[in-house]
């Protein structure tokens, strides 16, 4: 089975303190540490496990710039067979639909049985997978938490639904699935693995390679534009505790007890 996993490099929320920049237009990116979007990592692991069971190849693709090669290499160190970087100056400022349109052209140039994305990235839009499926006219399922291959033409998938319940469906191949975290235990990628793929060439596609009209992507074509970034103001009744962890814990206990929450 040929599997394509769409991945994204994002600021690692567990290793950064996210702050707004002075202009309020974006987050402060100077000292950020980036890594692969966590759900994407689960998607790659799932692809590797499927290939491990039924055979095939795994390709990871990202739309970005040369800095993003880092996450492609990490996923190749995990075991992905190919890494593809789609990069062009004209892509800058693309909205979700733009990214999906770029990926669509890439998918059409190859022959993939299954396309996976992480359930969502740091921006929380969870939009590219669904739009990509629609553009390709492929079936789509979101929040997938288990995959079983049936006779190479269909998948049996499990989706998480409200209240922790599971919904089991069959879906025809080719299809697009967005993968929920927790679907598997992703393997560890060590320094050794990363070094082993450090000089493996990564294919790069630009706007002309994909035969895209430069006017159909990028900021000009974007129909969604970010106009502001802000930190919510402290609302009525909210109290921000400032102190050491121990002090804060004691204070929280005290507050909860005072409201009758602890007996």
């Amino acid at each position, binding site marked *: 089975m040929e599997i394509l996993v769409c991945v994204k490099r994002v600021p*690692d929320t567990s290793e950064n*303190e996210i702050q707004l920049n002075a202009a309020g237009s974006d987050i402060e990116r100077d*000292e950020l540490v980036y890594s692969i979007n966590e759900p994407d990592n689960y998607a790659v692991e799932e692809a590797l496990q499927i290939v491990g069971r039924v055979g095939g190849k795994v390709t990871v693709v990202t739309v970005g710039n040369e800095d993003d090669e880092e996450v492609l290499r990490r996923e190749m160190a*995990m075991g992905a067979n190919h890494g593809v970087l789609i990069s062009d100056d004209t892509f800058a400022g693309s909205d979700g639909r733009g990214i999906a349109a770029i990926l669509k052209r890439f998918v059409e140039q190859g022959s993939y049985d299954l396309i996976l994305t992480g359930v969502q990235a740091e921006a929380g839009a969870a939009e590219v997978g669904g739009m990509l499926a629609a553009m390709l006219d492929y079936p789509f399922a979101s929040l997938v938490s288990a995959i079983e291959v049936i006779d190479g033409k269909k998948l049996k998938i499990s989706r998480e639904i409200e209240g922790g319940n599971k919904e089991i469906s069959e879906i025809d191949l080719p299809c697009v699935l967005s993968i929920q975290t927790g679907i598997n235990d*992703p393997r*560890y990628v*060590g*320094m*050794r693995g990363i070094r082993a793929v450090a000089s493996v060439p990564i294919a790069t596609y630009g706007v002309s390679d994909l035969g895209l009209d430069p006017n159909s992507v990028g900021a000009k074509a974007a129909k969604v534009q970010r106009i502001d970034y802000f930190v919510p103001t402290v609302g009525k009744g909210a109290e921000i505790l400032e102190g050491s962890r*121990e002090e804060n814990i004691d204070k929280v206990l005290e507050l909860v007890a005072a409201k009758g929450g602890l007996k």
Partner: protein
Amino acid sequence: MVASTQAAAQLGSWLAPGYALFLCIHFLGVGSFAYIVMRRMVPLVRAQSDLRFDHPLERLGRVGKFWLGQWKHPRYKVAGTVHILFFAGFILLAMRAFTVLILGTSPDFVMPGMRGELGHVYEVVTDYAATVVFLCMIFAIVRRVVFKPARYEVPSKFGKAHKADAVFLLALIAILMLADSLFEAAKAAGQMQAGQIAHFSAAYSLPWLLKTVFVSASLSSIGQFCFAGYLLHEITFYFLLCYRPFGIQFHVETSLFNVYFSKLDREVLKPVRWDVSEENLDQLTSFGVKTFEDFTWKHMLDFYSCADCGRCSDNCPANAAGRPLSPRFLTIKARDYAFQHYPMFGPTGNGKALVGGIYSEDEIWSCTTCGACEEECPLLIEYIDKIVDLRRGLVDEGRVPQSLQKPLKALESRGNPYGKMEKKRSDWINAKDFQQTCRVKTLDKNGADTLYFVDSITSYDERMHSIGRATAKILDHIGENFGILGAAEKDSGHEVRRFGEELLFISLRDQNAEAIRASGVQKIVTADPHALNALKHDYKNVPPVEHISQVVARGVKAGKVKFNPIEGDKVYTYHDPCYLGRHNQIYDDPREVLDAIPGLRRVEMKRSRDRSFCCGGGGLMLFYEPKEEERIGVKRVRMAAEAGANVIVTACPFCMANIEDAIKVAGLEGKMTAIDIAELAEQQMVREIPPQTKSTFEMQAECVAGR
């Protein structure tokens, strides 16, 4: 001379009918043993290389101490004493056993130099030795069968009980001693009846007792006893020789070599491969131990040498807490694997993965590398290197618990397991009230004589900041010109290495070593024993490093540090951190510091010094979620309570984290507290009363200057 010739003639006449048989058994016994040993050597030949042929004199010294001197045995009083007794017996009896074997076909044989008085003395001594060994075997059998010491039990998850085999082997040795005595007694009784002077003065020995029974029998029946004694001795001897390589008594043959080839520098972790230099690690296609053949030959010899005495697991904190690890069975399972896949006949090896086969992943991650097992093993079997090698194999295959992946990733990108910003590493020095009394400089712009290596937990964990500040205040008080690396410091990588991520460790080590060398300091002080161990043993070409307790102890001796009397009626106990005590033999300095505090009442826990019981493990072990029945730290806190203490003094921030948590889990909050030795020393330190001429401002200026 005439008498001995006659005795030889008599012996010859008794044994003559069996010559052909005896010869056959000799050839069969020696041949089988040679074949068995050859087959046992097969995996060792296929194993990885191991550098164990250096320092022959030092190695011989260890043979003298640990093998001949049985150094570790008295740590278990009863079993140890019994072992020393029958080991001494075996050493004495070795020559006699060979002499007896030869007598079967050459009745007039005497070992060179044993013809005169010396031979007589030797005979008397060995008569007693045989008796002692016989009695020891009876005692050991009774102990195994009736008293059943708990550490010999085999938990069902590790297979069947080993008792029957152990008792069988003990009984065989008893039979061997009995046969030897029978033979000697019959020989002597025959000589006495023939009116020769029988040199037999080992009164009340086993041969002596048998002789008194035989002496009234007819000469021909004595001859038959002699024949039977010889045959029984020969058969038992060769049976034991050939049976031992199939079980726990193989150590009789291998222990000498195992001790000779044992690791000399125990604190230096085994390299990934002995025959591949660090620069060439990238060329390796595989890391660590994945299959049995990835072990080194010495580690396989360890498996063969285990005597199944259970002392390792008896002391293992992971085993005590019910984690799925028992060092004893780490070895036994590998030995069983070797026996199964390297059989006496037929094809050898199967190349299957060990973890997932004989070991579980949890078993391998459960070890805290505290070293209690290695400290105890009388045969000097190594465990930490094997665990680390198995972990290297797991890391290489990406089989790392999810709980450890985030901290490892953060160590790679941020140089600390918490994923905190590099620039926040020195935040602890900026607390207002601390800054007013002591200003710590960072060495990026300033120079200093001494580096205080803080390491990640003390830098980032709020609770541990006070250990850092206490350490800085002590250094300041004794007039040390010191500083910290600040943002340039990375995690020492101590646990990164011990959790099998060698290349990440090398990267952290190189960044630190470069920063240390660039700072131009002459020495390093740390309050974190894990950092101490890394800097001392894992790093190369960095200045000498000391733990803060050593610095304080020296200050006390030099009169530079004086303590105010301690108030209250608290009882203190000192918990030896594994990487300060067992791994670096720093036991006395912290105790001297505590004993220098006037009025401090100190008790020792039952398990202290080199038998200290791990707190639960430091570094990455804090992130690992083990499967266990009870926390290791909770067990430790209970030990302190049992000793009658209500304050546990530690000397390691990881011990502090584990013990403070354990106090809460054990429900001892309010009854038990923990304090770091640096915190306690700083709290009790007598500050110079400022002379009238010195203003507070001047005092502060001195402190700022690091004087």
